[in-house]
């Protein structure tokens, strides 16, 4: 599969994402520059973590207007696979390619730690290498990861299987202490209705090597790689 990692000026995990896909997974991956409109014929676009344009206003609020995002929106409308990690998730919500929004953590502080996630829907292009109910150990690192959406919308999303990942404890159970940022319904990752756009706050690209603390993130990338059209 051909991957493209979008590089905004303030992207930080762009290199790590490229490294995970190209070096660790051995896939064909390239950087895409935010000022360009061309996606270079890639089959999956990854929006990485970071602070796209500084994010002094609101995370992702400016990135959505960048030239590359016009193409990403069109690519998504055509059914192309798009994954947004952390700031990438925030951008996808700002661009209305995903429902809901991400606001400041309940603690009002940045949190960097490994958390447990439960796979809520394993029949998507992003999770098909996992099984429903599988637990993944992935790091989070964000200040604004509290997922919110109108109650009605969340209910509908849950019915349609759009809630893909939830924060749980080590035993796979939801509990308030295991919800690191106070997200509604402990939501950590969601997809759009067509299941070709996926956003998540945890960082799968930071869980691809045992030496660095775990390999559960590979599940996400393997799922996508196995979903090539």
């Amino acid at each position, binding site marked *: 599969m051909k991957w493209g990692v979008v590089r905004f000026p303030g992207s930080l995990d762009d*290199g790590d994402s490229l*490294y995970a896909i190209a070096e660790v997974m051995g896939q064909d991956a390239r950087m895409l520059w935010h000022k360009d409109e061309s996606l270079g014929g890639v089959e999956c676009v990854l929006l990485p973590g970071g*602070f796209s344009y500084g994010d002094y206003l609101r995370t992702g609020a400016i990135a959505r207007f960048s030239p590359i995002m016009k193409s990403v929106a069109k690519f998504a409308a055509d059914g192309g696979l798009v994954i947004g990690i952390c700031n990438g998730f925030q951008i996808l919500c700002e661009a209305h390619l995903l429902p809901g929004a991400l606001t400041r953590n309940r603690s009002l502080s940045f949190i960097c730690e490994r958390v447990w996630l439960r796979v809520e829907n394993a029949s998507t292009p992003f999770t098909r290498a996992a099984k429903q109910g599988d637990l993944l150990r992935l790091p989070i690192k964000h200040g604004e990861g509290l997922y919110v959406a109108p109650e009605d919308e969340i209910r509908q999303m849950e019915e349609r299987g759009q809630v893909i990942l939830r924060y749980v404890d080590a035993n796979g159970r939801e509990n308030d202490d295991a919800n690191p940022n106070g997200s509604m319904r402990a939501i950590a990752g969601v997809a759009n209705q067509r299941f070709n756009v996926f956003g998540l706050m945890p960082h799968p690209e930071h869980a691809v090597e045992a030496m660095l603390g775990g390999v559960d993130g590979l599940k996400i990338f393997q799922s996508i790689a196995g979903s090539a059209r």
Partner: protein
Amino acid sequence: MSERPVSLPGEPKVDLEQARAHGLAPDEYRKIEQIIGRTPTYTELGVFSVMWSEHCSYKSSRRHLRKLPSKSELVVQGPGENAGAIDVGDGWAAVFKIESHNHPSFVEPYQGAATGVGGILRDIFTMGARPVASMNSLKFGSFEHPRTRYLLGGVVGGIGGYGNCVGVPTVAGEVMFDAAYNANILVNAFCLGLVRKGEMMSAKARGPGNPVLYVGSATGRDGIHGASMASAEFDKQSEAKRPAVQVGDPFTEKLLIEACLEAGKTGAIVAIQDMGAAGLTSSSSEMPSHGGLGIELDLDKVPLREAGLTPYEILLSESQERMLIVAERGREAELQAVFEKWDLHAVVIGQLTDDQRWRIRWRGQVVADIPIGALADDAPLYDRPAAAPKIQPPARPSAAGKHPETAKALRALLDSPNIASKKWVYRQYDSIVQSNTVLGPGSDAAVLRIKNSRRAIALKVDSNPRACALDPYLGAVGTVCEAARNVACAGARPVGITNCLNYGNPERPEVMWQFIRGVEGLRDASLAFGAPVVSGNVSFYNETEGHSIPPTPTIAVLGVMADVAKHVTQFFKDPGDAIVLVRTARPSIAASEYAAIFGIDGGRLGAIDLAREAALIEGLVEGAEQGLIRSAHDVAEGGLAVALAEACFNPRSILGAEVELGRAGNADAFFFGEGASTVILSIAPGDAARVESLFAGRGLEFAVIGRVIADPRLRIAAADNLGLDEDVAELRQVYEDAIPRRLRGGD
């Protein structure tokens, strides 16, 4: 040629009184008049005052810093550039330095700490190195002091707020709380970058006629006289110095990192320097001066945030995220294209000259014209008087003291914010970006792999002000030993040192004595380990209303290991493993956390045998290389009992330990003493003889004291009912909740 600089309308009159208000001594002012042969303009006076400040000129410390060893076969760059560099193998050089941002952080903790991170990052990437790891050393007042929570929250928020936005992981640090810092906190920031050995950039300008480019943020009024603020004591009006604190913009810093590294690849950069302390003045005078050249700048070309800035303000502004670049003549456009790609200013504001003058024009007039060496290199140099204080600490502990029950004392120590888990702090830092962090915060030392190589580096930052207060020489020696030992515990050989020397007012002979003794301690320990001091920073005037901080040399040690797979962590691994104690001396409670908590006068520090310290480090590195060491933990604050408990707190699965200590002798020192360079290892039982030869063979004390058990209990058997049998999960709860509980306001 020489156009006489003009005074501008409305500028204050320049005289001795004005010079004094600028922090210049009468002799210094007379020397300025002598050098330039006339009365300086107001602009020139401002420029001299910052360049001759202690912060910029190192006028009290320079002659002593020359004593520090700065050479080894691995040194790629010693002192004299923006940072030092050490060869870490496979063609890579590690560029690193630690720097203080104490004064601004006390006045405005968030921005003070944030810009401290930004400044040290720029010192690294100006060398052409990509920053790959940050650390910090923080000292706050007592947790009970009313300002401490505000300062702690602000400083940690600022470090995270900046560091997390630039994509450099914060991998290690230390935090201490002590009433001695109630009125002067310390914020020391470290950064390390990696660069291919032949691709380092320099701050030494060459080539008269080469253009000078201003890149990065526009200049505003923030931070004027920041360097002067850092060169004076605090008083009751210190809060009023807020305008002297700069404001950080990490997004621009991130752009600057990428743009400068990319611009470096063009080969069109001759020299580059951060506009740090004293801003445009220091960078524009130091780069040409170090190359034996002069410079001519046109201030009308400097990008400004607002109209109406005077030359004085433009030259002294410490606005952040700005760099000065000397380009190869004719290749300006290549560099400008790179900066334009990153949406940054890159403007030619002047050129190098061959007349060794620092000449500044503004609106068609010359406003400053000074022999460049007078600013950059020929600041006054002082050999300030030094004298040991009259009162020395008592030779022995004041009273044997009533020994608190061992288990109670252990819990009290684990609950001390100085020993307890700092997770509340480091959870707020991105410690994993760049995908190199093998061991992050919460370990004895951080370990980072080098991509496309089997090699790894280990990093540790340490300080021990209580020991330095008792004996500034031994305290400094001990600090280096501890940092080096921590790096060796991880399996890495210490190869380089950077230091941040935090002291009080050097005009007081006892402070100067502390400083000189500290430098001598650093020198001796550096020589013993063959780890040169390649960079550093001095912060004087950490003093408020006559009360100085304890001498606080902060030491960061870089270690290198040949095979990252052989790194060692501090946690016990498997039940049945033997627990081994190795040490160089007998512990004592002098300068210990135990003595501090229980109000005991711990007496004097014991001597340190540097040959034995070096032997311990050799043994640890060899043991790791041979795969004989399953865990290694340095016995630090809280002594042996705390170290044993910490080694049980394996985040994967909590373990227990059964230890037999026999007759404890002086029980306080035995369980909770510090300062003896002690390490606790766990090893496979069958390896005991081989490990013994590593250490006992080097003349060190070696003893198998127990074993790791699956039952999560810490059992220490000792004579006279001094032992304990505690639930490890409970101990960990105390350890982990100590800081959050205090912040919640509970008790």
